[in-house]
């Protein structure tokens, strides 16, 4: 019994990381109506940038974010304005195929620069310390920090989207980029900022991932699939839905792994497909607008 409780608690904590993967993807889709196949590779890119920053400055992983985060923001802004803005329109092919091509380019550039070796960021004692709840039930400090970061980010993003001038501009541009221009909104700039914001979240996700587990240039697509599944399970309706989606995925994976280690990832995918069968619009579908 306590073993299962432990499995579920660990799954919920894992879900925090998946929610971090997913919020950026959700924002990119929410504002630009763009599904970014490069998303997973950008998470890995952020992890490698953090690795370089840590090697050169000696910062710890958390502190490295003060450099990694702005770098990813800038990459996002120019990626959107220089390339992705030109793919937007009624045709689905260009954004899909362009982000797919970019994904292969980023993976292979990372492979060329950093080799296929597995890497990990060292955060010190925090990695292994945990809070003992009862016998056989403990919560790792670092996974807890990850989950709390996800929750904090979602709260901040909701404030940004619902309460600020920029947030209104994001929503208005997402609704109708043409009419938004009549409000004095430069939609291309707004899209650039949204991608920058999303990659800022990717920076945090990348560092959290890199402290928690090994990474190498090839793991991007797997992270994309987790992020995607969390967003779809959540139902595109709200960022909280995305958090729930991430947690469901994390719990499913942990239960799968407990049955048989080979079933860990498979169980996550199957949970996603089952939800797709019974709730094709996800658990918290979008109610307003289209």
């Amino acid at each position: 019994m306590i073993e299962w409780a432990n499995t579920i608690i660990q799954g919920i904590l894992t879900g925090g990381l998946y929610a971090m993967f997913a919020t950026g993807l959700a924002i990119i889709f929410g504002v630009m109506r763009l599904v970014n196949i490069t998303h997973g590779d950008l998470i890995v890119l952020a992890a490698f940038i953090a690795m370089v920053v840590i090697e050169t400055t000696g910062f710890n992983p958390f502190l490295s974010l003060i450099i990694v985060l702005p770098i990813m923001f800038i990459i996002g802004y120019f990626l959107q304005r220089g390339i992705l803005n030109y793919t937007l329109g009624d045709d689905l092919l260009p954004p899909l195929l362009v982000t797919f091509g970019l994904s292969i380019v980023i993976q292979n550039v990372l492979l060329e620069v950093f080799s296929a070796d597995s890497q990990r960021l060292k955060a010190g004692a925090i990695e292994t310390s945990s809070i003992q709840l009862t016998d056989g039930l403990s919560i790792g400090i670092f996974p807890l920090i990850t989950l709390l970061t996800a929750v904090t980010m979602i709260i901040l993003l909701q404030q940004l989207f619902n309460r600020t001038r920029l947030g209104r501009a994001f929503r208005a541009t997402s609704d109708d980029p043409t009419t938004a221009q009549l409000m004095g909104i430069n939609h291309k700039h707004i899209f650039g900022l949204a991608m920058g914001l999303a990659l800022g979240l990717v920076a945090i996700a990348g560092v959290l991932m890199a402290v928690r587990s090994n990474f190498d240039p090839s793991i991007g697509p797997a992270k994309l699939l987790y992020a995607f599944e969390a967003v779809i399970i959540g139902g595109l309706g709200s960022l909280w839905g995305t958090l729930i989606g991430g947690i469901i995925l994390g719990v499913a994976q942990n239960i799968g792994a407990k049955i048989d280690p080979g079933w860990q990832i498979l169980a996550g995918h199957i949970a996603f497909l089952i939800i797709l069968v019974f709730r094709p619009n996800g658990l918290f579908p979008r109610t307003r607008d289209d």
Partner: protein
Amino acid sequence: MTDYIQNNSVTSFKVVRSTPASRIGSIIGLILLIILVSFPNWGDRATIRLFVEIFYILALAQMWNLLAGFGGLVSVGQQAFIGLGGYTLFILTINFGIGAIWAIPLSGLICALISLPIAFLVFRLRGHYFAIGTWVVAEVFLLGFAQIQSLGGGSGKSLPIAIVKSISDSRAGREAAIYWTALFVVVATIAIVYFLLRSRHGLALTAIRDSEEASNSLGVDNFKAKLLVYIFAAFGTATIGALIFLTKLRISPSAAFDINWTTTVIFIVVIGGIGTIEGPILGTIIYFLLREPLSDFGTWYLILLGATAVIVMLKAPQGIWGIITNRFDLRLFPVQRRLKLKTDK
């Protein structure tokens, strides 16, 4: 457009699909086909093997192009059917004693049946999400087949020597048989796609690609047409997959359900020209021409391909074949109906 018609008083017009280029093309095609059919009789072994690979990659490209370029169904998970086709062939030959060559089309048919419930799942995801949804399904097969111990689990399985020998006793005979099968598959694939697109279904498909909303209002049964394309592409892809793993003689989940199958095919179709039959052919030729000299630079080759695909998609979304047709009005496989105006001026 209207100005053009008004200014040149049209006396008569007819709807044509054949072009002079296509007539010359069919003669050249026939000669080429004769050369290719006779090739195992005089070609060397390494080239025969290379041709087999070119044939199945081209056939895969045609199938993906049918799906994405004509049906608007951008799947990143067609490796699901390549792998399923391969495994089905192994099961049919090993467990049911079916002849290796006959097992190829049979694998395709079985996988077409399997594609129905898959379609039921992935068709719930629209547009962009469909793409990643198909990828998840392919991953499920990859991870799932790794759990099946009777098929060798994660390390895979080889085709028993008796089955290999049943195709032909000699190695040369085997390779020729596989060569002709591969040639038949690729010619049949192109022919079927060509005639499918010239049929009424083809018109419906073009309408879907051009505008989902418009074709709905035209009364085209969108969902049915898409489902048909999806199932047919599953049949074709699985048939090719069965052929691929008959040539490789060994199958494992990570080779069978490898995303790189789809990556390669997407690059070929995008660079060659999506939405045409000629595009994938041109793309395949370019892919193999570049691969031979660049294969030593594995990573850089992929970076180059990826970057080229991105640039093509941004600057010339009709691909290299599109650039050629715009400049020379050349069509080898005219699937579009074109209005020819006779004017007296």
